[in-house]
């Protein structure tokens, strides 16, 4: 187990190293820090002097090591637009994105488990067929289109719900302001969260259904039935437990995917989170902010994947740890 853990952590570090190299290459080639600093109207001599002072004439290796050194101390440069440390800008936007992901995850868990179990238990029933039919329609609608459709219906047509922004938010701690404390906040997060959930929900319903159907065929479920245990207990205690393991693994990986989809949802709903900020940074060629986003998101991906893998190794006794570590 320890060897597996070490290998996993080592791999995570290797991936972060690759991300840092890519980020540095972007920072090195995208935009001109001098122009952002002093503008165009400075003589060539002064420019050279400034380049020396800033260390822009150093070797690639020296510059890269400095970049990594600064990054490890939390210094990812200063945003050209906000004139603030890039990491601070991102951390200020992070809670909005995380709350959106959290709300969407709640919707997904709350709906996919009952729907998946139901469609597995009664596969030929009309309701199950409808759910499965809707799930394939759900997979086929891109998340931004779901979002637009919902704005069109609930914001433009019925005028029930707001179509943009976070609404009334309440500060909790530091730069974390929450949507969940006021009714207005809940109303604002509802549409974006449903839109974000809409892409994952069908996937999970199908996954839980498929796993559950397989488990229900297994010997131990037959044995439990023969013993006369109530169906409800078999479904929810015996079968569901063993269904959840693969679901957790897929779920962990999908958290990363959700971060990508937040860019789409946040753009449509003008949700002031990281994803919306990233696209703005791209339009302004705000290199430090782009690089900082890349590193923060890469870090989120690597950490969630490593944790999921470790949990999977811990929880599932049948995982051949030696093989997985190879």
């Amino acid at each position: 187990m320890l060897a597996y853990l070490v290998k996993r952590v080592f791999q995570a570090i290797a991936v972060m190293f690759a991300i840092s190299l890519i980020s540095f290459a972007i920072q090195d080639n995208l935009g001109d820090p001098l122009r952002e600093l002093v503008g165009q109207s400075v003589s060539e001599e002064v420019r050279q002097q400034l380049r020396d002072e800033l260390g822009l004439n150093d070797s690639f290796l020296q510059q890269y090591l400095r970049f990594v050194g600064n990054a490890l101390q939390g210094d990812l440069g200063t945003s050209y637009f906000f004139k603030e440390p890039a990491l601070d800008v991102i951390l200020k936007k992070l809670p909005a994105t995380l709350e959106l992901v959290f709300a969407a995850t709640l919707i997904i868990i709350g709906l996919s488990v009952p729907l998946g179990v139901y469609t597995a238990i009664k596969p030929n029933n009309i309701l199950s067929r409808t759910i499965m039919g809707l799930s394939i329609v759900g997979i086929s609608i891109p998340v931004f289109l779901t979002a637009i459709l919902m704005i069109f219906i609930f914001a433009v047509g019925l005028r029930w719900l707001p179509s943009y922004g976070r609404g009334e938010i309440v500060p909790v701690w530091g730069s974390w302001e929450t949507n969940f404390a006021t009714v207005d906040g809940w109303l604002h997060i509802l549409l974006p969260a449903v839109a974000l959930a809409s892409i994952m929900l069908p996937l999970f319903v199908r996954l839980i259904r498929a796993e559950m159907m397989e488990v229900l065929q297994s010997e131990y479920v037959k044995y439990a039935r023969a013993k006369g245990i109530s169906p409800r207990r078999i479904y929810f205690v015996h079968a569901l437990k063993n269904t959840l393991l693969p679901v957790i693994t897929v779920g962990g990986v999908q958290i990363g995917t959700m971060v990508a989809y937040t860019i789409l949802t946040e753009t449509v709903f003008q949700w002031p989170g990281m994803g919306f900020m990233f696209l703005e940074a791209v339009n302004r060629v705000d290199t430090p902010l782009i690089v900082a986003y890349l590193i923060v998101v890469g870090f989120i991906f690597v950490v969630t994947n490593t944790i999921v893998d470790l949990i999977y190794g811990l929880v599932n006794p049948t995982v051949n740890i030696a093989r997985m570590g190879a």
Partner: protein
Amino acid sequence: MTDINATREPGRLGRVWNSNFVYSFRKNPVAVVSMAIFLLIAAAALLAPWLAPVDPYDPSLFDIMDSELPPVWSDSGDSRFLFGTDDQGRDLWSAILYGTRLSLIIGLCAVALQALLGISIGLIAGYVGGRTDSLLMRLADIQLSFSTLMVAIIFLAVTQAMFGSETFNQYAVFMLIAVIGVAEWPQYARTVRATVLAEKKKEYVDSARVLGFGPLRIMVRHILPNSLSPIFVISTVQVANAIISEASLSFLGLGMPPSQPSLGSLISSGFDYIFSGSWWITAIPGVVLVVLVLVINLLGDWMRDVLNPKLYKG
């Protein structure tokens, strides 16, 4: 005299017609309807230059006075424009035909690239085994752990910022194909590797080896044809996903430019106008996109049931 021809073997076409695969297709109304709709959309896209009343790429043909006209069937519709016009006065019907063509081309080419990369890597990993295998599969794991959309967004955003939107727009088609194609290779590689591992142990591979065939020939001529059915199954899903990815990227402004719109960029340009009531610029391309992806997914679902029920685990 007996007629020998009365009981002759059915011809090649007849055998295909009666095969399990085609039989189950004929007996499945959902699959037949999906296929019909898909062929219809594909034909319309292919024939776009002949079906479209105007060339949607030529701004000199648009009249700004015609902008935001609703579709023909609404009260203030104009008979010249079947689906109405967009904000620049461009005929939406023509734009959708050309846009569908772009979306389909990008989707199919991206999947072809994925398949080429993924199948080669999967074959090598499965056939060679050992260190090469574990290294390649580790790479696949890492690549898979980063969502395609994320990788594509970051790559396209950075290239766009680096080269400026003009140069970017010129090469947008190739960039989209490349990034969607490269990011999804592990899907193929994993599946192919798994089938190769199973096929490798079979006797026909041993006999090919005994006959002195080289590894390349065995991999491509012997093992690959026996691994085709899972490849078909994932290909349909991958095409649907690639079309969605392209639309999403174009919607974010990281794909096809508004001057040469795909379905995603059409939806994006219409989004600014839904608040003022011009719903058709977004809705009609949106419906086309969803129908296109849906029929491909339905065909994929049917194919998965027929070819390989075991793959159903998702």
